[in-house]
């Protein structure tokens, strides 16, 4: 037994190193490097930002005039944003059951207003799921799994999108990322998602320096020795480290003048911007901004907890868009950002100057291809129009996500991505081509055989 490392036989090691490196070097500059000739490929990037805790949509996008302004003031005597303050960031008006209602941003969302005016922001009002549940955890699980009312689905909706997309190249370095925290439930079961915090901390250049590289060779051997789920998951992690170290470990500088919030959220947005710019094939990315569970002391328009968090959100999104609004064509021309939360909050304030768990909420789409403006059917705020005291849901979240999948990502496999969802028609939040819904699920492996038990729900219930 006297093997030196260079003689080790690695299972699965087939390609000559130099050729592989040469082919991947090109990928740094062109994310389409792996497309086979003649293949139609899609290089759109979908970013899903989840606002954990249930964002108070009525505190973000505020009725400023019309009968609903009156209802809003009655519902929220202590918590209302002054009409003039929000009217300064006008979003126009819609016609609902109570006539014309004008809306404006909470002042802390000011950095988003220029994007709205430029038509880059589509806001779907009264969006959500019919399942009538005020639980954070059920609601989040159902949305991220893409199956309202069912929380033992074995994969996330983004996982199923990536599995069914027939317009992606066969080789992609980093098709999917989950940035900050644990891997998002929407990417549950994805075997190609890189889950990381910061790229500079995602390296194995640590430990006794003489043996870092050798250790990695043997580590790979140990994880290739079997096909159990723990071995496979370890290999994914090791592949991810190799890629990130090679392409993204040198830090990142945003465009001059672009200022991200100095927070984890700001860092995570920058990581995604970096990965988009270096051209490693990113198609899907998720991240979170938490802290929206404002049961007390939410704050009014002048400031307070909600305003600070909303300011972080608005500054971050605006910086992200501006940072990517470069290149030929601009990165933003391929970018769609979905901003969603598990539910809205109760229409009326509670005596602790906060709001309890509610129902319908805004869903925001920021994109170079947005059809900007207010969308959806505004249900009104009169008592009889509320659902158990909450804003009603008039648009299913899957309708909006389906439109983005079809029009931007070019993937019409809706019946697989959102099993049980029927009756889709586009709402018109983004530009793009309407494809016929593919009723034939395309399974790229044994997914439907139920072999995903090791990856099933992470719910503690």
């Amino acid at each position, binding site marked *: 037994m006297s093997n030196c490392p260079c003689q080790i036989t690695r299972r699965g090691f087939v390609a000559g190193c130099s050729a592989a490196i040469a082919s991947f070097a090109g990928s740094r500059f062109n994310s389409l490097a792996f497309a086979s000739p003649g293949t139609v490929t899609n290089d759109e990037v979908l970013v899903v930002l989840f606002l954990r805790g249930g964002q108070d949509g009525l505190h973000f996008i505020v009725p400023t005039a019309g009968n609903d302004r009156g209802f809003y003031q009655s519902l929220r005597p202590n918590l209302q944003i002054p009409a003039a303050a929000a009217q300064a960031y006008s979003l126009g008006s819609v016609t609902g059951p109570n006539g014309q209602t004008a809306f404006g941003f909470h002042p802390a969302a000011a950095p988003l207003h220029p994007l709205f005016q430029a038509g880059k922001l589509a806001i779907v009002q009264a969006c959500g799921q019919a399942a*009538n549940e005020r639980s954070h955890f059920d609601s989040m699980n159902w949305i991220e799994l893409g199956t309202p009312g069912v929380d033992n689905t074995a994969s996330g909706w983004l996982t199923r999108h990536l599995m069914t997309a027939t317009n992606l190249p*066969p*080789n*992609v370095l980093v098709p999917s990322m989950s940035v900050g925290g644990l891997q998002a439930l929407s990417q549950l079961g994805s075997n190609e*998602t890189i889950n990381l915090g910061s790229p500079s901390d995602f390296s194995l250049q640590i*430990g006794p320096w003489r043996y870092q590289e050798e250790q990695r060779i043997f580590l790979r051997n140990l994880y290739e020795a079997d096909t159990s789920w723990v071995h496979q998951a370890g290999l994914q992690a090791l592949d991810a480290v190799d890629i990130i*170290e090679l392409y993204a470990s040198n830090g990142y500088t945003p465009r001059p003048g672009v200022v991200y919030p100095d927070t984890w959220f700001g860092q995570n947005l920058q990581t995604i911007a970096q990965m988009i710019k270096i051209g490693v094939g990113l198609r899907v990315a998720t991240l979170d901004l938490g802290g929206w569970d404002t049961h007390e002391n939410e704050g009014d328009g002048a400031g307070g907890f909600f305003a600070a968090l909303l300011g972080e959100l608005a500054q971050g999104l605006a910086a992200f868009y501006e940072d990517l609004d470069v290149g030929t064509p601009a990165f933003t021309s391929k970018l769609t950002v979905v901003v969603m939360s598990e539910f809205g909050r109760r229409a009326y304030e*509670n*005596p602790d100057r906060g709001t309890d768990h509610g129902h319908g909420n805004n869903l925001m789409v920021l994109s170079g291809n947005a059809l900007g403006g207010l969308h959806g059917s505004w249900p009104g705020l009169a008592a009889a129009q509320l659902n158990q005291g909450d804003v009603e849901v008039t648009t299913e979240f899957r309708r909006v996500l389906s439109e983005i999948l079809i029009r931007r990502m070019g993937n019409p496999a809706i019946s697989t991505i959102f099993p049980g969802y029927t009756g889709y028609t586009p709402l018109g939040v983004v530009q793009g081509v309407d494809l016929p819904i593919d009723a034939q699920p395309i399974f790229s492996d044994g997914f439907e055989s139920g072999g995903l038990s090791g990856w099933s729900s992470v*719910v503690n219930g």
Partner: protein
Amino acid sequence: MPYPNLPALPQPQSRPSRPPSRPGLFSALAGHFPAGYPAPTGMRRPGKPVAPPGGTSSTVTLPSVAVVALNRMAFGPRPGDIAAFNALGGTDTARLTAYVDQQLSPTSISDTDCDNRIAAATYQTLNKTATQLFQDHHLADPPTWEQRIQPALETELATWMRAVYSKRQLLESMVHFWHNHFSMYAYEFLEGPMWVQVDRDVIRANALGNFRAMLGGIARSQSMLVYLDNFINFADSGVGYSNENFARECLELHCLGATVSYGNTPRNLVPTDGNGVPLGYCQEDVQDLARALTGWTFDIDYIPGQAGTTGQFVYRNDLHSTEAKILLGTQMASGRTAQVDGNQALDILVQHPACGKFIAKKLCRRLVGDFPPQSLVDSAAALFTSQWQAPDQLKQVVRHILLSNEFRTTWGEKIKRPFEIAVSALRASSAELRFYYQIPYPPDYNTWHVDMMDTSGLHYLYEMGNQILFGWHPPNGHPDIRGAWQASSPRVACWRLVNWLVETQQANGTWRLNVIGQTPSGVRSANEIVDFWIDRIYGRALSAFDRDQLVDFMASGHNADLDLPLDTDDATQDRLRSLVALMFMSPEFLWR
């Protein structure tokens, strides 16, 4: 961001005596990889499934009962633990029964070494009364942020110390479980100052005791009262309560579970069992529980009529909703006090059959496997419910699970989470760490005590694994199922952590993981070294392939039967450190 004022370490430091890390062959600009190592391949590539096929390993074999027990009801074996376990009896059953009963009586286990270590760590807050905590860390004029979070931080440090060094491993495992069950984010305005109280007086005091007592302690703890807002839940002239946050999570996360939530279904339409008891709860139950708990608050000056000088829990009948209530089908009469109403409500929750099933399933998931057999869950649940008033209810339930056939015959259905990886590595290697912070933090990084530097370094690396103790923001706790922990972020974070650990040194220059010193003098060939450390770290044999890999790494081309210059050669010593880290990184180390 749990340590807001703590200067972040740019990178855990290599010791000055060691050469600086050279630009590795993996550096971003390099076009070369070591011979035999592949260039990065795409996360998507032909022939690779987009989602994993799942299944269990063909090579996972059931280890000895000692290994099972020490990895699932303890944080992994320390040197000598397996032998001590095996000396407890002549059969597996006798050994396991003796060990379980020993561990179920923690006060009967002498814990001098751990006690001495904690005493030497000079924590300042762990023995303060609740009122002292309130006054010193909330009222004191005004406390700095460091003073505010000191009780939470010191509890966290002591938790690490106990997990690594305490002989009362089942108690520590259960404390870990119950903290996660009643999960709170500790590094907050009032949770931080009062954290010692909830850890010591509620979780530790009842972890092997009675669930109803623990639930009551949680509901009255200042930390939970603030975290889920019940301290400002008062009778309101409109709806009879003002904040349903705690009530909802008490039903969903603490007692019954979301699987029996009927949402907004009207109360009279919730299905019932043969005894007329509703199978679950609906929004009306959430609201009536919120009403029953109105006036459960504490002495803090935000509350009208409170001086805010002691922080003591109070029942405020003047802020309590006296109307009649119905909870899970049980009528609660009108005109009663906050104390009577709230306590009856908690009694109702704990006696409901769904509570036993919910808690039993979580305990089985922790102690047995991610998908425990329903028969075991059901029998544990029945015991939980029938013994709901017994002072040793949880001891009985845990004993039932640990002595089940399923406990000793299940292996490889769970993986260690980051805390278990870190702690079991520290235990297997007899690490010397004092988890320690100087409070207030010395402003100049260069004046930090080496123990504080290493605690901080460990925190920095450990945090990226996403299992920060008392640092999970939402109230549902860290997931306890493998699907949540096999992504790349926790995996890579733990790989980094163990590599850093093998390189750190104490103030006197000795290694914290003294792997050289612990390798017996007669163990010097690659074969001997690897076999010694396999026994130490895994407590069981590895596959021939895995063992050969480790021997190849250690021998590095030399004859694996010949002695290596471990006592004199710096490079050989480094190789052994790297080998031990590699073993901690390996798939076999992850199984529970």
